[in-house]
């Protein structure tokens, strides 16, 4: 790392107090939450938005400084700009809370702050008139703070801490309309499912930390690491010497799988995805921010952060790949049958995250293209998915219903929303000029490059299905004739809502052309250089684009014309359609497991057992003493002569006992 770059960065304002980026939302959270909220709601909104936008500007500045110090293509070091010792378990297990700056964290910081400030702006309009307006912005700021804290964490325990805080703020935001029982249930479900996954994450951390601690206490600090490194620090965990040693201890793969389950829980991969669709109960900007751009990608970020260790263990990445691919295809199929606009977008998010996860999964120590592709897709997806959600929000805001079948013909009524929604739909379907095309194409290329042909095929298929269900909802909501009278007095969203839409639309158009590989990539162990772009070979983008276009065609064919051919097709599918529509009854299975088994067969018997047996035992002793007291009291017969007998036999008894004892 050359000196010039280092000192150029050393005196850059942004780098030195990078801690301001997460700190600003935190201070505004405290300020708004405690003081401003009770007094004026409007001011709360403004202050919240201002703080997040300043930290967005700061992170842009930091990105500029960083990449000017380490130009594209060069090696991007991970620098801890500021940290202090928060908690000291013992001398090898120390938690230094601080900010770690490298290309990955800058990418996430930019995305999070940018989308969050847009959502804040959008919410000022969307939430006007709702009660708890101030409370909403406080939660939003808390969320942004915890997300940023998670992203800049230099050690895995700080990640876990902010991981939990993100979970709590999502719980608060989902349950914002707490008078609605369904919102309360959804927030509870979200928190408990993520908490369940965090359990595995915590056990994973403990396992790695303790083994690391044992290694360090036996062999000392591995060379090349600073003296006061702790077993929690990413530098220690991702250190190649350490991971090989852990591997031949045989605990690396189980630990990483545990951590991956934690990531899967937060990013709603297959078995733990049930909470995301229900999370739509929260206000739409929340879904846009949390369930599109930021929180759900935390899992991807974590796997990316530990990519080197994951690559060191053979099977961990494979698990990620196959689970990602399955979620991708599974969610896409369900998305085609949903009628609630936000549910469709939720399932589409699930499938896109499946994309990112299996992109990481297909990458390996040698072939690191997948890593770049996944992060590129994360970057682009954040923008167009946020746009889709905000667009849907605008639609719902004016039509006051989520069901796409009583919308229709909104294009004329809401021109800006229509255009921006169209751009986003094209982007996600992978049509050429928009961002989705480039990132999705790169993922498919990476899958093909690493000879994962099955996953490659799934990728292609899902690209088509995505295009199909996206255009299905576009056509049904915006084109065709109005299906309910609510549509008549629909009106264009106010300025504060349309500006973010337009900005996002512009971004989705432009961002595809960035040579992402030069900025965000990880050096492959063998070649040493980062393979940013899929070189030469068969141009993968052609089949990808073709499947996208066929998807659009089918959608147009089924929903475009007057005759609704769609219902015909669904009858033919019959029972299959009903199963997909009911989301494969996964929710009912969970419901059965949690309520029936846990409540009925575990906690009730325990509560009963506690009341009857353990409590009974105590009462039994009480009863026993009283009973023996009563029987003994009957010895006092009142007859003087029996008393005399007692006395004499007492003497005889004592003599006999002494005699027995003496002999």
């Amino acid at each position, binding site marked *: 790392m050359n000196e010039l770059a280092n000192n150029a960065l050393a005196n850059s304002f942004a780098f030195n107090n990078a801690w301001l980026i997460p700190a600003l939302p935190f201070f505004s959270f405290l300020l708004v939450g405690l003081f401003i909220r009770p007094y004026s709601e409007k001011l709360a909104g403004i202050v919240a938005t201002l703080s997040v936008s300043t930290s967005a500007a700061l992170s842009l500045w930091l990105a500029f400084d960083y990449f000017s110090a380490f130009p594209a293509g060069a090696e991007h070091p991970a620098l801890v700009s500021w940290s202090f010792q928060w908690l000291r378990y013992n001398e090898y297990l120390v938690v230094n809370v601080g900010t770690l700056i490298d290309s990955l964290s800058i990418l996430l910081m930019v995305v999070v702050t940018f989308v969050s400030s847009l959502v804040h702006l959008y919410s000022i309009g969307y939430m006007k008139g709702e009660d708890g307006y101030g409370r909403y912005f406080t939660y939003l700021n808390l969320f942004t703070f915890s997300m940023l804290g998670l992203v800049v964490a230099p050690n895995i325990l700080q990640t876990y801490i902010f991981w939990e805080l993100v979970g709590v703020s999502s719980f608060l935001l989902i349950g914002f309309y707490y008078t609605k029982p369904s919102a309360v249930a959804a927030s509870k479900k979200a928190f408990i499912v993520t908490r369940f996954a965090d359990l595995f994450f915590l056990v994973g951390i403990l396992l790695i930390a303790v083994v690391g601690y044992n290694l360090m206490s036996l062999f000392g600090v591995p060379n090349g690491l600073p003296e006061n490194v702790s077993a929690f620090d990413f530098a220690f965990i991702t250190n190649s010497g350490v991971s090989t040693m852990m591997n031949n201890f045989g605990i690396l793969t189980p630990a990483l799988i545990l951590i991956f389950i934690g990531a899967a829980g937060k990013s709603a991969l297959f078995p733990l995805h049930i909470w995301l669709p229900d999370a739509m109960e929260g206000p739409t900007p929340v879904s846009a921010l949390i369930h599109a751009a930021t929180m759900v990608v935390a899992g991807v970020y974590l796997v990316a952060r530990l990519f080197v260790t994951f690559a060191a263990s053979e099977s961990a990445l494979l698990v990620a790949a196959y689970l990602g691919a399955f979620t991708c295809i599974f969610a896409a199929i369900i998305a085609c049958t949903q009628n609630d606009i936000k549910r469709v977008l939720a399932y589409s998010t699930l499938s896109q995250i499946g994309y990112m996860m299996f992109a990481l999964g297909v990458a390996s120590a040698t072939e690191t293209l997948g890593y770049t592709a996944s992060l590129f897709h994360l970057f682009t997806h954040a923008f167009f998915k946020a746009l889709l959600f905000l667009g849907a929000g605008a639609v719902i805001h004016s039509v006051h219903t989520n069901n796409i079948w009583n919308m229709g013909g909104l294009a004329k009524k809401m021109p800006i929303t229509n255009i921006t929604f169209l751009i986003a739909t094209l982007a996600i379907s992978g049509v050429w000029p928009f961002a989705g095309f480039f990132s999705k194409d790169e993922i498919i290329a990476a899958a093909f490059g690493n000879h994962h042909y099955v996953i490659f095929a799934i990728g292609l298929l899902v690209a088509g299905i995505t295009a199909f269900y996206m255009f299905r909802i576009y056509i049904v909501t915006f084109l065709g004739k109005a299906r309910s009278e609510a549509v008549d007095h629909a009106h264009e969203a106010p300025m504060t809502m349309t500006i973010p839409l337009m900005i996002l639309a512009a971004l989705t158009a432009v961002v595809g052309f960035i040579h992402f590989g030069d900025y965000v990539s990880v050096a492959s162990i063998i070649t040493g250089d980062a393979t940013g772009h899929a070189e030469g070979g068969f141009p993968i983008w052609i089949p990808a684009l073709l499947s996208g276009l066929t998807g659009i065609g089918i959608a147009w064919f089924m929903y475009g014309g007057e005759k609704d051919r769609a219902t015909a097709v669904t009858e033919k599918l019959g029972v299959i359609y009903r199963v997909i529509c009911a989301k494969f009854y996964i929710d009912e299975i969970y419901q059965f497991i949690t309520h029936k088994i846990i409540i009925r067969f575990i906690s009730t018997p325990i509560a009963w057992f506690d009341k009857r047996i353990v409590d009974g035992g105590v009462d039994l002793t009480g009863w026993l003493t009283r009973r023996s007291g009563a029987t003994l009291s009957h010895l006092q017969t009142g007859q003087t*002569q029996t008393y005399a*007998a007692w006395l*004499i*036999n007492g*003497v*005889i008894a004592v*003599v*006999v006992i002494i005699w027995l004892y003496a002999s």
Partner: protein
Amino acid sequence: MNPAELTHTIVFYGLALVSIVAALLVVTVKRIFRAAVALATVLVCGAGFYILLDYDFIAGIQLLVYVGGIVILIVFAVMLTSSLEDTEIRPSKSRKALGIISSLGFLATALIAFQSTSFPLSAPTPEQPSDVALEIGRKLLGYGSDGYVLPFEIISLLLLSAVIGAIVVARNPLKKSSDLSGQSEQSDGSAT
């Protein structure tokens, strides 16, 4: 066995027989007055035993105090508490059994114990101190390390308090108030 020992043994067994029979009568006879008489005979035989043991002074005291005083007192009590004729009802079967078992049990344990312990017999000095009565008198009032003047004083206090107690308890109240419970007793304070 020289003649003195012979008479000694015969008298011993004779008296023993009489006193045991009389004792059994005391505890079993139905009419209480007859029991009192039987008690008197037991005590008289007791005095006889003391003479055998060469303690004729004690025998005299026994006859005088025990038979003369206490038995007469008991006879008074018998007359005061019940008419001469009324007979006592038999103790219940189980109570009698319990009594027999316990007393025989005690007897057996005591005898086995005496059987198996060798008592430190004092050397059989032929002559008895000149006069037991004189010796006892000296002991009773002696101040020295072997005197018993202290118990002598204490017994006097004991007898005094016993008599006072007996008077207070046995005094019949002046007023023939029907309600004998303690409540009414208070009104007139202690009858002098």
